[in-house]
């Protein structure tokens, strides 16, 4: 199962587990606020080789209709995908 964002942040004593086990893949915050630059894919140039997907440390690149697409909620803007892309389809743009 892929970890996903939940609506509820456990906060009251009843919601916080007494032992150390909890549900797997429980996300409550995004990482989008970390980045200064964001990768933007030119769909025309993308050949769907999936190298960016393979080398993304955060796993935020996925396949969409044979092309690469990015989950901007969790992208930290490291820029590895831009460097790894053989066709130059990824550019880094400043976050506004």
């Amino acid at each position, binding site marked *: 199962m*892929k*970890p996903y964002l939940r609506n509820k942040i456990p906060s009251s004593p009843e919601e916080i587990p007494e032992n150390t086990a909890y549900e*797997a893949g429980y996300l409550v915050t995004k*990482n989008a606020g970390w980045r200064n630059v964001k990768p933007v894919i030119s769909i025309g140039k993308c050949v769907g080789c999936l190298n960016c997907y*393979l080398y993304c*440390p955060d*796993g935020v690149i996925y396949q969409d209709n044979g092309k690469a697409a990015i989950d901007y909620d969790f992208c930290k803007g*490291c820029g*590895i995908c831009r460097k790894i892309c053989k066709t130059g389809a990824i550019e880094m743009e400043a976050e506004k």
Partner: protein
Amino acid sequence: MAINAKTLDKTEYFYGHKACAGCGGSLAVRIALKVLGERSIAVLPAGCMSAVGFNFPQLCFGNNAIISTFAGTASMLTGVEAGLRAQGIKDFHAVGFAGDGGTADIGIQALSGAIDRNDNIIYICYDNEAYMNTGIQKSSLTPFGAKTTTTPAGKNIRGNLRPKKNMFEIVAAHGIPYAATASIGYINDFMRKVQKASEIEGTKFIHVLAPCPTGWGVPTDATVDIAKEVVDCGLWYLAEYEDGEFKLNHRPSVFTDAGEYLRKQSRFRHLKDEDIETIINARDKKWDFINKNFK
């Protein structure tokens, strides 16, 4: 079937974690879990990956994962494997992800014990060459000359005085069923090794070099390039140990400039020409050994 980007499990099992941008260790963990699949139980000792993966209530593993004691990664893996086996559960992988300090310094006795018992576990050491989680202290896998907060570069002493511990051969000397070195710069090679390890009965050990942009002093987008370059310049090697024999997987026809590799990183920027020569001489000596003893 050869494993590659197209055949790899599309589900992410390590997602939303709080690792620094461009983290090499998180890439190693993410890819290894994608190869091993949902039925793996990940054991993580203190270290970057447990610090970034378990920030309650932000829990970033989609599979079962647990934090072990710092020294006890391998012993907890033993327990996980034995416990599940006792319950009659089959078709799972007990996999540990420990850093270089958690493997070569603090966890080495537990690892040695697990190999001795030949427990059916996979132990992956993601090596970022220092205790990065606590602010870059030297471990025994920190290479010669690297500047850390405990091996500072000054007038008299220029960074770490000791060479990197030869963890791969130490593990192999146990007569382990399978051990390998890898680098996240050669991710297909790493994936193949994780898959191979998953099919072998007994203890498996993979030592994967995973650069840390924060600790190494390289830009966040350089992680993968630097992990490639360290192999290309001969300061790291891709090899396997199986059936009592060492096998080299990748032989660079000519080494790229090791000095250039070192000068790119701020942890090595203080090195003088003579230090770089020392490093290159040690590299050549190591490769003489590899050429003599590896297939």
